[in-house]
């Protein structure tokens, strides 16, 4: 591993991957809700609400007003300049971070981000989203994100930059999983013994790329507690909370391998407590209230960890 890296560049790579992961998760959620919106017979009580609540700053009233308005949501999520978290704005921010760390990312990765940027800035995109081309556009964007992840895996060197990229990516992924899980458990009061059917959980699981794994891994009755196992405790699920925390832990160890600073030890301890909190939660006897607490506390602690991590490594100004 390279001995060091400019703090500014490390910051850029961290945020590049946070933004791209956010875009990926958001598009997957959008795609899921959009496709399922064609099945009119489903008793859908939420529409695009989980997506809008987590990924936008819209008010409750506004979300209530538009949560079933597909055309509005598509345009707002994909290409609205006023939405700080639109795909367009996230790609712009990702590209800015990529530009700032361009000498540390590969040519292939840069060219891919750049081509996404130009696509998102094409002037006819908003109009096309009002037509039947909308699905093609979402599918293309989903594939672009898959390709991004593939190029990242295949071309990027495994040095410090990779560590910062991976940590950024998995902090973002963990927060997405927690928030989307909250979005589906909150309306049922975190009821672990409830009888919500697979149609209800399918939305959450598809949004987290975990539907197929769920079908293969769990029996087909009493889903609520099993869904919790999959999204929080399943080490084989790449979007589960425990898997993402474990991943972050691996790359923190790489970063801190030769670092004897007391701040580094403090941060490592802080993260160790967070990971242990989830790892040693008794899933079998988890109560409704404890589930709510685990999700809330893990999210808060992870946000605090991200802030402290940035202070330690990126405070270059």
């Amino acid at each position: 591993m390279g001995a060091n890296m400019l703090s500014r560049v490390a910051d850029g790579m961290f945020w590049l991957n946070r933004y791209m992961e956010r875009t990926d998760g958001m598009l997957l959620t959008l795609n899921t809700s959009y496709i399922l919106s064609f099945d009119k017979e489903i008793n859908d009580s939420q529409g695009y609400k989980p997506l809008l609540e987590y990924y936008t700053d819209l008010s409750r009233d506004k979300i209530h007003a538009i949560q079933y308005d597909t055309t509005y949501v598509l345009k707002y999520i994909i290409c609205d300049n006023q939405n700080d978290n639109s795909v367009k704005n996230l790609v712009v921010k990702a590209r800015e971070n990529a530009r700032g760390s361009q000498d540390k990312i590969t040519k292939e990765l840069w060219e891919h981000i750049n081509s996404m940027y130009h696509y998102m800035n094409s002037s006819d995109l908003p109009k096309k989203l009002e037509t039947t081309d909308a699905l093609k556009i979402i599918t293309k964007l989903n594939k672009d994100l898959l390709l991004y992840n593939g190029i990242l895996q295949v071309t990027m060197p495994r040095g410090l930059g990779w560590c910062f990229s991976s940590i950024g990516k998995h902090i973002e992924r963990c927060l997405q999983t927690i928030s989307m899980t909250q979005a589906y458990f909150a309306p049922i009061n975190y009821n672990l013994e409830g009888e919500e059917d697979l149609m209800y959980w399918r939305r959450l699981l598809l949004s987290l790329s975990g539907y197929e794994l769920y079908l293969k891994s769990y029996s087909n009755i009493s889903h609520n507690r099993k869904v919790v196992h999959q999204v929080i405790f399943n080490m084989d699920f790449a979007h589960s909370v425990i898997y993402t925390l474990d991943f972050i832990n691996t790359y923190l160890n790489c970063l801190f391998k030769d670092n004897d600073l007391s701040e580094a030890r403090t941060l490592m301890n802080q993260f160790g407590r967070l990971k242990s909190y989830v790892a040693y939660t008794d899933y079998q006897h988890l109560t409704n209230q404890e589930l709510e607490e685990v999700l809330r506390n893990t999210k808060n602690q992870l946000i605090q960890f991200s802030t402290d991590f940035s202070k330690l490594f990126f405070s270059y100004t």
Partner: protein
Amino acid sequence: MAKLAPSLNHSGWDEMFSKEGVRDSYSQVFKTLQSLSHKNLTNKQQQASDLFMNQGITFTVYSDDDNGIERIFPFDIIPRIITQKDWLEVESGIKQRLMALNLFLEDIYNEQNIIKEGIIPAGLIASCPHYIQEVQGIKVPHNIHVHIAGIDLIRGSKGEFYVLEDNLRCPSGVSYMLENREITKRIFPDMLSSNHVSMVSNYPMIFHSILVSLSPRNVSNPNVVLMTPGVYNSAYYEHTYLARQMGIPLVEGRDLVVNNNRVYMKTTSGLQQVDVIYRRLDDEYLDPLVFKPDSALGVPGLISAYRQGNVALVNAVGNGVADDKAIYAYVPDMIKYYLNEEPILKNVPTYRMENLDEREHVFANMETMVIKETNQSGGYGMIMGNKATQEEMDEAKIAITKTPRNFIAQPIIQLSTVPCLIDGELKLRHVDLRPYALCGPKGIQIVPGGLTRVALTEGSLVVNSSQGGGSKDTWIIK
């Protein structure tokens, strides 16, 4: 088939066509072009544009709604060819010129013998805005001030080369020389190999070894960095390209700090000493303690560390005094004075506006002259006598009379032309050539090639990219 027979250039030199037909050096290229359909050629032009766009080789144009539009620097797919014989003249001429300019800078910032012996007036140096008093007496590694130079050349009506100007501060465009070749490889792979074109891709390696050799510390792996003004600089793509090609960190001023007259970069594992800085920002932004106090781009204390010899800056500080347009007129004299040789490459005849006789001659023949401000570049501060209105010429006369030191005049030279693919047809457009010379302890090296800039507007002689110019791949054929 595309229209491949443009009107001939009767008043100047065309590089592909003579009165007798296609020149030998272009015969293979012309044959290939003839074999391609109009659609095929247009597709290749589009393919080249797409490659530039996707690679981010762009600059941003901002509009009223604040949404930047990214544009590429136009690239014409028809290569510009220079024969080996012509190139040898260019190469030896640039080496000679650069040697003299380096000696001049070493002299002017130390003994100033050239002034004492009356070759160059002291007033001309003292009044030059790019003469930096703060580095007077400085000793730079190996006495090299110009490590990288971009020398702009044009060809006259008989094909003879002239030096139009020297760029000795932060010459840009070398990434386009390299990228243009990469694009040509993709769109005309057969044409390149069959024409025995000299390689340019070793430029970053040569430059990197020069940078390493300048380290003040005797360490096996000195820290070399490329310093950029940041992502919003129009040449940022080039900065990232070169940093990546040389495998060196791309730093901004905020990434560096000076402590105890040593320069350090802020890394994720603490401060690390920097030995050599290839800086791509102008002198006046380098150090707010010495130059512009409000500059946030530079590093406080950098010049002090530089003066102490703890860090090498490439190019050296203060080179602007040697590429000032008024000093340019004296370069042939420098060559004679320092090297006792006749210049191999001619200067464009230059009228010094401080000289009353020369000024009156210019005023009397203004429609055949180009007036240039000595402290401007990039095609700015220039009046073409044959295009200017009477009002513009009158204003220029007043300005020249008021501060003659700030202006020079040169006869308008019809730059040579090269055919370009425009709207599916070959059309003649004016070009210049900027070869890049690298100067290190082992001597001067010039990669066989350069950036051919082309004025895409019909009849225009202004090739600068900031004025709507484009570029071509430049082939030196063996």
